[in-house]
């Protein structure tokens, strides 16, 4: 009995000593703060402001550039929906790299949010037989069609359900986001996602400083750390400011459509009402908000 007590007190003393040493050393206070930071959803306005300020200072020190970190909340009466015109996509992969640039994705190790799959027209949508590595001189190649896959922003997202620490959730405007500070890197969500939309930072993410996008969102494209999961957020830093996502703007064939499902005048609404749309892996009942459609 006595022995146990002494071990307990030893551990207690050690942890107390560590914390007080950290607290006293001063220069480590921010790391300490960040370590103890609450989940984004439970933060008050004041706490958010403080965190943002610290982040902006931290990024400036690290990259020598001015950053603007936004914590803008969802716009009322918005539900973001995406549609992709399959008959138009010809696989230029411009969207893949626009996304990388806009969202400060790690160049090495490489992370891509969008994977363009080349499929055989004879076989239809067949993931087992698709080719993400196509690299001919010119596209489109005869007898093939192209199907880009990224986060499908499910209405029933199982990546959220499985997260043991509630580090990922669906926002009121339908975007599934990750609090990188809360992510413990268990990668359950990656196993739960049938679209391969979530990506893990196996190494320290590397982005060339001159290519860093300085318009950031806390839940979006702020520089990630090693050991956290990230995903497409429909360019949350853009769409919450009213802009189209980067992949929509870059697409040279205009195959990518984006808008507010709750706005009866939006082009997205027209597509859902008038075109033949489909979702991927419908049988799983994840109910994606990412639709694919064909020409007439």
């Amino acid at each position, binding site marked *: 009995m006595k022995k146990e007590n002494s071990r307990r007190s030893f551990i207690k003393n050690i942890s107390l000593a560590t914390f007080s040493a950290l607290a006293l050393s001063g220069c480590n206070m921010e790391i300490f703060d960040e370590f103890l930071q609450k989940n984004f959803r439970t933060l008050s306005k004041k706490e958010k402001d403080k965190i943002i300020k610290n982040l902006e200072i931290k990024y400036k020190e690290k990259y020598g550039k001015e950053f603007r970190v936004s914590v803008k909340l969802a716009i009322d009466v918005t539900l973001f929906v995406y549609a992709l015109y399959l008959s138009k996509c010809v696989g230029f992969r411009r969207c893949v790299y626009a996304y990388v640039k806009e969202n400060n994705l790690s160049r090495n190790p490489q992370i891509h949010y969008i994977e363009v799959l080349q499929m055989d027209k004879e076989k239809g949508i067949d993931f087992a037989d698709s080719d993400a590595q196509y690299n*001919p001189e010119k596209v*489109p190649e005869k007898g093939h069609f192209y199907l880009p896959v990224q986060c499908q922003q499910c209405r029933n997202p199982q990546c959220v359900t499985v997260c043991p620490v509630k580090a990922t959730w669906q926002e009121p405007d339908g975007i599934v986001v990750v609090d990188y500070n809360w992510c413990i890197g268990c990668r359950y969500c990656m196993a739960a996602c049938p679209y391969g939309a979530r990506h893990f930072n196996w190494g320290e993410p590397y982005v060339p400083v001159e290519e860093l996008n300085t318009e950031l969102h806390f839940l979006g494209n702020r520089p990630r750390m090693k050991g956290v999961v990230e995903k497409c957020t429909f360019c949350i830093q853009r769409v919450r400011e009213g802009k189209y996502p980067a992949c*929509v703007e870059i697409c040279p064939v*205009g195959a990518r459509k984006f808008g507010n499902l709750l*706005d009866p005048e939006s082009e997205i609404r027209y597509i859902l009402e008038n075109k033949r749309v489909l979702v991927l892996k419908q049988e799983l009942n994840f109910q994606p908000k990412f639709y694919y459609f064909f020409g007439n």
Partner: protein
Amino acid sequence: MKVTIQKITKIPVISMALLIVLFSGCNHNESDNSALYNINEGEKTSAEVTEYAVEAPPFSDGAFPCTDCHANFIPNPLKRELVDWHQDISEMFNHDKENRWCLDCHDFNNRDSLRLASGKLLDFKESYKLCGQCHGEKYRDWKVGVHGKRTGEWNGTKEYLLCVHCHNPHSPKFQELTPDPPPFRQEDIK
């Protein structure tokens, strides 16, 4: 999502009318009386301008106005392959070559204008109407933002491209391009 019907109706309406009003902004031909321009004419002053067409792509240097050269020629209405002039266009022309030629779209008397099948003259900036005569389905889709590309704001000011920004009117098939590099494969990572 908790949304009441009431709220939905409050969303600022970006109607087709606005699209049209905006088009009229870059249109010199105010006498136009097509249905397109008349929808919600009354709203023209009150409605906030939220969509507009980007400028038509520029002509090749020295190509416009066409009358600089054509004013001196006696026009020949006979369908033929042009060999002395506009050879570049003759060579690339691939837009129902069998049945169509220059004067199906360009006006016989006024080369600075396009001409609809009805005989109505059309400014080059309104070429989309000419395309829409045959490609009605695409035209319909384009007007609502499905065909072609829109940039700008999903809930506000949008810019969109005219048909001829992406399709060469003389050879409209979209050009093949080299794809950006494929992703690294897991097995290639050392």
